[in-house]
Structure formats: structure tokens, C-alpha cells
């Protein structure tokens, strides 16, 4: 043999999964929701999405190449996922420069300052979104009304989200039964015909993405199911206590980024706990905080904050919630 043979410790065969495959899987799972958004919000959705992805990838490239001077790893798709998710969390009429700031914060502050992929404690897309929400509250909460494919970009007609309508209405003393007439019906909520952030509206499409990711074993059921379940449970209890002041659980689950958050944001590998038990605790926390913000807080929507808050607890959860070790308790029989 002319060439040298290789030696290495075992194992000698490996699975076919890779970071890139996982990330592109997530992107694929997001496509249906994107299509629905384009259908309702027209060009704006496409422009915002492309800008956001473009800026995220660009900033990641620039930071890796010129500031950190490390290996450029934009091809692993993680910056693309961040960009896509950031776009999904903003209104489809957001001006380009705000998107750019959002991407810079998401990638620069949310991800790279901590050492890049795998080290960031907070979901970068959410860091970007929350920053924008606080800095540009007007632009970030003037949601275009679904107007079909020809809806313009920045000049789109805007309106409130269903959750916003309810919140404002309750403040001015109206009851839920009155307000329910003003918000879209359940079918519309399910297919996504409502005002809201670009990607959060299409319940059906998001669930499709969830099933796809489950099937491809990209994520497990724990976080989405527990989180949605917790929100439904708590809002359900409130609803049973006083159906006049609280919307029903189905409404809560279908509106505001609950599904987007549960399926795509909270499940982010890096910022969620490592063990199934930890994941369940984490998503119960997110659910509970979301409901508290929605019902008692001043924002109509609380998923982003809830996820970020629970992200902060992840290291603690990882430290103390351990998988069940084999042979821990001796069973007989």
C-alpha cells in the first residue's frame, strides 16, 4: 500500500446528520408559513424576508472574517435561520434600515459576542426583535392588514392585531363577547388571515412545519406541545373563571406568536435545555410567563419576552436537571 492507512479511536462509522442538514431542515419547515405570509401580505413579506436573511448572513460573514478573524461558517445555515426567524417576527412593512439594525443586533450582539454558534445564551432572532420593539415601538407595532398579493411594502395599510384589539377593548371596558365580533373568526386565524408579524399568523402552515421537523427528527415534541399546552391550560382556567374578561384558549393559542414561538423560537437548540425533563420545565415557564404578560402586562403579546426570560434560566436548568442515569435506582422484577 502506498498511501498510509488511517487510525483513530472508535467509533469508526457515523450518522449522516450534520449542522447544515439540521439548519436547512428548519428553513424548509419555515417555507409554508412564508408562503402564507406572501399570500396575505404580498411583496412586503418577500422584501423583508430577503433583507433580513441577507443582512444576517452578511453581518455574520463580516464579523467572522474581519473582526473575529475566525473561520467563516455562514454555509452552516444558522445565520440564515436567524435571519428568517427575525423576519418572521417583524411586521412586513418594516423599513429596510430598521431590519438592518435588527440583524446587526441579532447577529452581532445576540450571537457573536458570546462566541458564535453554540455559545449564545439568548435566541439571537429574539434579541434582535425585542431590541427593535423597544427602540422602534411605532414601526414595530403597526401591522399591515392582510390585503392579498398586491399589498405594498412600506406603504401598506396598517391595523391592530387581534390580541391588540382585545387588549385595547378590555381596557375601554368592552366585554369579550362584544370584542370577538371585531376580530377575525377562527378559520381566518387558523389559515392566517389577520394582522400580525410576518410569520406568526399562519397557524396551519406553522403546524405543518412542526410535523415536518418531527418527522425529520429535527426537534422533539417536548417544547412545542408543553408550551402550547401550558398556555391553553392557564388561559382556559381564566376563561372558565370569567369568560367575559378573558378570551378563550383557542384564541390565545392561534394569535400572537404562540405557535411560531413554540415551534421555532423556543426550540432553538442552543438556547433550550438539553434534557427532556428540562425542556418541559422550560416550556411550562415560557407558557406561564406569556399568559401573565398577556393578561396582566401592558403588552398585548408576551411570547418573545417569555422565551428570552426562560433562556436565561437554561444554564441553571441544565446544571440541575439531569437525565435519569442508567442503574440509578435498582429495580427488581
Amino acid at each position, binding site marked *: 500500500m502506498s498511501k498510509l492507512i488511517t*487510525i483513530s479511536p472508535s467509533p469508526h*462509522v457515523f450518522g449522516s446528520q450534520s449542522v447544515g442538514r439540521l439548519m436547512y431542515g428548519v428553513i424548509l419547515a419555515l417555507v409554508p408559513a412564508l408562503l402564507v405570509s406572501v399570500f396575505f401580505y404580498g411583496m412586503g413579506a418577500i422584501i423583508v424576508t430577503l433583507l433580513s436573511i441577507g443582512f444576517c448572513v452578511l453581518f455574520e460573514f463580516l464579523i467572522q472574517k474581519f473582526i473575529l478573524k475566525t473561520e467563516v461558517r455562514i454555509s452552516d445555515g444558522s445565520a440564515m435561520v436567524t435571519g428568517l426567524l427575525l423576519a418572521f417576527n417583524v411586521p412586513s412593512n418594516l423599513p429596510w434600515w430598521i431590519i438592518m439594525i435588527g440583524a446587526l443586533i441579532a447577529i452581532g450582539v445576540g450571537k457573536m459576542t458570546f462566541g458564535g*454558534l453554540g*455559545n449564545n445564551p439568548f435566541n439571537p432572532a429574539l434579541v434582535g426583535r425585542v431590541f427593535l420593539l423597544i427602540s422602534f415601538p411605532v414601526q414595530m407595532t403597526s401591522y399591515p392588514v392582510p390585503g392579498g398579493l398586491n399589498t405594498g411594502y412600506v406603504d401598506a395599510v396598517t391595523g391592530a392585531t387581534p390580541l391588540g384589539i382585545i387588549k385595547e377593548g378590555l381596557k375601554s371596558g368592552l366585554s369579550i363577547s362584544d370584542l370577538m365580533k371585531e376580530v377575525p373568526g377562527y378559520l381566518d386565524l387558523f389559515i392566517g388571515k389577520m394582522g400580525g408579524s410576518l410569520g406568526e399568523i399562519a397557524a396551519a402552515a406553522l403546524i405543518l412545519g412542526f410535523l415536518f421537523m418531527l418527522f425529520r427528527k429535527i426537534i422533539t415534541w417536548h417544547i412545542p406541545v408543553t408550551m402550547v399546552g401550558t398556555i391553553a391550560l392557564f388561559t382556559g382556567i381564566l376563561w372558565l373563571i370569567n369568560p367575559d374578561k378573558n378570551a378563550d384558549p383557542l384564541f390565545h393559542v392561534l394569535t400572537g406568536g404562540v405557535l411560531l414561538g413554540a415551534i421555532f423560537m423556543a426550540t432553538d437548540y442552543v438556547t*433550550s435545555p*438539553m434534557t427532556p425533563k428540562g425542556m418541559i420545565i422550560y416550556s411550562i415557564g415560557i407558557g406561564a410567563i406569556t399568559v401573565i404578560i398577556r393578561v396582566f402586562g401592558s403588552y398585548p403579546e408576551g411570547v418573545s419576552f417569555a422565551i428570552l426570560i426562560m433562556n436565561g434560566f437554561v444554564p441553571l436548568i441544565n446544571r440541575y436537571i439531569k*437525565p*435519569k442515569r*442508567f442503574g*440509578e435506582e435498582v429495580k427488581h422484577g
Partner: protein
Amino acid sequence: MLKTFAKGGIHPPENKLSAHVTILDLPVPKTVSIPLSQHLGVPAVPVVDKGDAVKAGQLIAKSEGFVSSNIHSPVSGKVVKIDKVPDTSGYKKNAIVIEVEGDEWIETVDRNGDLINTFDYSREEILKKILEAGIVGMGGATFPSHVKLTIPRGKKANYLIINGVECEPYLTADHALMMQKGEEILVGTMILKKVLDVDKALIGIERNKPDAIEHLTRLSEKYPGIEVYPLQEKYPQGGEKQLIKALINREVPSGGLPIDVGTVVHNVGTAFAVYEAVQKNKPLIERVLTVTGKSISKPSNFRVKIGTPISDVIEAAGGLPEDTGKIISGGPMMGKAINDLSVPVTKGSSGILILPEPEAKRKKIDPCIRCSRCINVCPMGLEPYLLMSLSQKNLFERLENEKVMDCIECGSCSYTCPSNRPLLDYIRLGKVNVGKIIRSRK
């Protein structure tokens, strides 16, 4: 659902290329080199000298202490040297090199192939025969069998488990052995049952070997107390702890032995070796192994004399392919890559696997994305990502608390990691270091 173990596990492509190939006898090589340490424990001590003539089956090295094993000459010939020879690790270890001359056997060995299925030796006699024959665990762990069969005082075995799982991809030696020596394995099992004084022996076989399951189930009707259980395919079901969990749903406690939950596990190959030792007085001087690989022209199962150079075995399977990238002694998950074809077959060699060039290389290491796949597949309920980083940082105390010593080195974590992180490499290092600390404490 068929039985299997509860937590973790993977199912790599099986690639059992030689599954239905009949076991062939490999011709006796010209020289054999027999390492003195082919088992776990203290190396054996040579009882022959350079220049001595030896017969096949003759004791050439004596076990040194309880956890050690006798070694016999697999051939007749002359001892040409007792010297350091590289073993599979590339380190040189002491070995006895014998040049083959003629084919003389010691008289006691019964070389007739007929089945003898009755025996009436006492437990002590059987144990003595097993000890003398130098039998070790044939699944690859090479733990001296007599040690496992000596039940510590105060403990009692209620089950004997025979491991016919062969969950490693590619390997088929046990499968072939079960098909061709099924009855001998069952007699061996009866003998082991007697030694352990148990009523029940369970044979676990994964369902990817339906013919073996069927064959042994049929044969076992004649042997009271032996039951064959089909198992779902899942790696590392062949690990003792996982097999016990799968078959009788008991968990060996951390740091414990199977006997702590009332079982003893032996491999089918060991059962066969026990049969030969007890019924035929034949010491452990040959074993069945698989030679396989996608570009090997004739994937085969051979019965090979211990000490045969691996190059001879590969030659018999059609020679080393052009695109060879890695040569592995054992299976692809737990086997050892070797760099020298002159290393000998030992008691623990279950197979030789040739991986072609592109498959031989590891992929680029990416940062951990904390996807928790490694945790999900770890059959021992450990957190490989954490163990790796603790090991890199030399945090031995935490490593110990995180139960690094429980790792069975199955490699499921490294197999699964999408970032191709060398998890097991570092965990193994951590185990070595923590092991040293634990030992120094005593």
C-alpha cells in the same frame, strides 16, 4: 413491540455482508505470534522457552493470579522467540512466536466433531476445566470467564443470559456460529447453567437474525430451562447492562456487576468455547471471526487459530482492496483501528473490517450546537457533551460526579453528533484520568 432496553441507543446501517456465509477453516499459518495479554487482567507468564517444541493444545503461558488466563499453543512447532511484538495499538507487548511444524496435538483433546450432549461433571470439575482451557469473554471484552462464573459469597444468580445479539454492524461471526454450532452452544449453555446453579437461561438474539432465532428456538426444546428471546434491533444491545435491561428489565447499578442483579452474561462464542473445553477437552486456541467490508471481494466467516497474522486472514477473504482507508479489529462502533497487518488474531478478535478510503476519515468538527442528540442516544443516561467539555477542562471531580465512569464507550454519542464532535475520545480520556484518581484514593 419486541423487547429492548429503554433508554437511548441507535440503529446504524447493519451491513451484515457475510450473514449467510458458512464458517470455513483457515489453513494453519506458517508462524503464529501469541500475545501474553489477550485478556483483561494480569498478563500470563510463559512456561516454555525459546527453542522448545510444542504441540497444539499445549499450555504455553500460565495465568498469573485470579484475574488472568491460561494460554495454549494453537499449533505444533517450535518456539522461535519470546519477545515484544506490536499489538493492535502499535505498542509492543510480550508475545510467544511459534514456527509451525507438522500437526501434532496433545492426546487429551478430542478432535472428533461429533456432538456430545450429556455430561455429568460436578460444578468444581467444570469450573476447573474452564479455568484450565483459558476461556475468556469472546464478545470482545475478553474478561476471563472463570472469574465471572465464580459467584462472590452472599450473591446468587437466578438467570444466565446468553448474548447472541451481535448488534455491531458488519459482524456476523456469532450469527454464523449460532447457525452452525447451535446445538453445541446449547450444551455449553447447559454446562454454564450447571456451574451457576440457575434454572433459567435466556438467549437474546436480535430479530435481524430470524433464521438463528428459529434454529435455536427449535433446538432448545430438547434442553430444559433454555429460552430464546427475539429482540428489537438496537445498538448497543450487546452490552451486558443493556441486554440485562432488555431481557429481564433489571438495571445493573452504577459501578456494579450483573451479579448484583442476579445474572451472569456470556456470549454465544463463550458458550461454544465452554462446550469444547468441557466436552472435548479442547482449550481456547481458535475462534470464529468475520472478515468484511464493502470492497472486500469475499466477506467471510473463518475459524482461525489464535496468533494467525491478520494479513493471512484478509488474504483468504480476497486480499486487501485497493481503496482501503482503515483496518479495524472488531466492529465499526467499538473496534480498534490497526496500522499493521502483521498483528495477530487474539482471543477477543470478533472481526476484521476494512473501511474504504472516504469512509475512513472523520468529518470536520463543528461547534456543539447543544442539540441534545448525544444525551438522547446515550444508553447510560449520561450527558456526553458535558463530559467532553469537562474532560477538556480537566475538571475531574465534576466528571466523576457526572458519572463518567458509567460510560460503556459504546460510541453512540460520537456516532450521532451532527457537529462530528469527538465526544467519546475525550470521555475516554476523562475516564482514564478519573480512574487514576479513584485508584489513588484507595
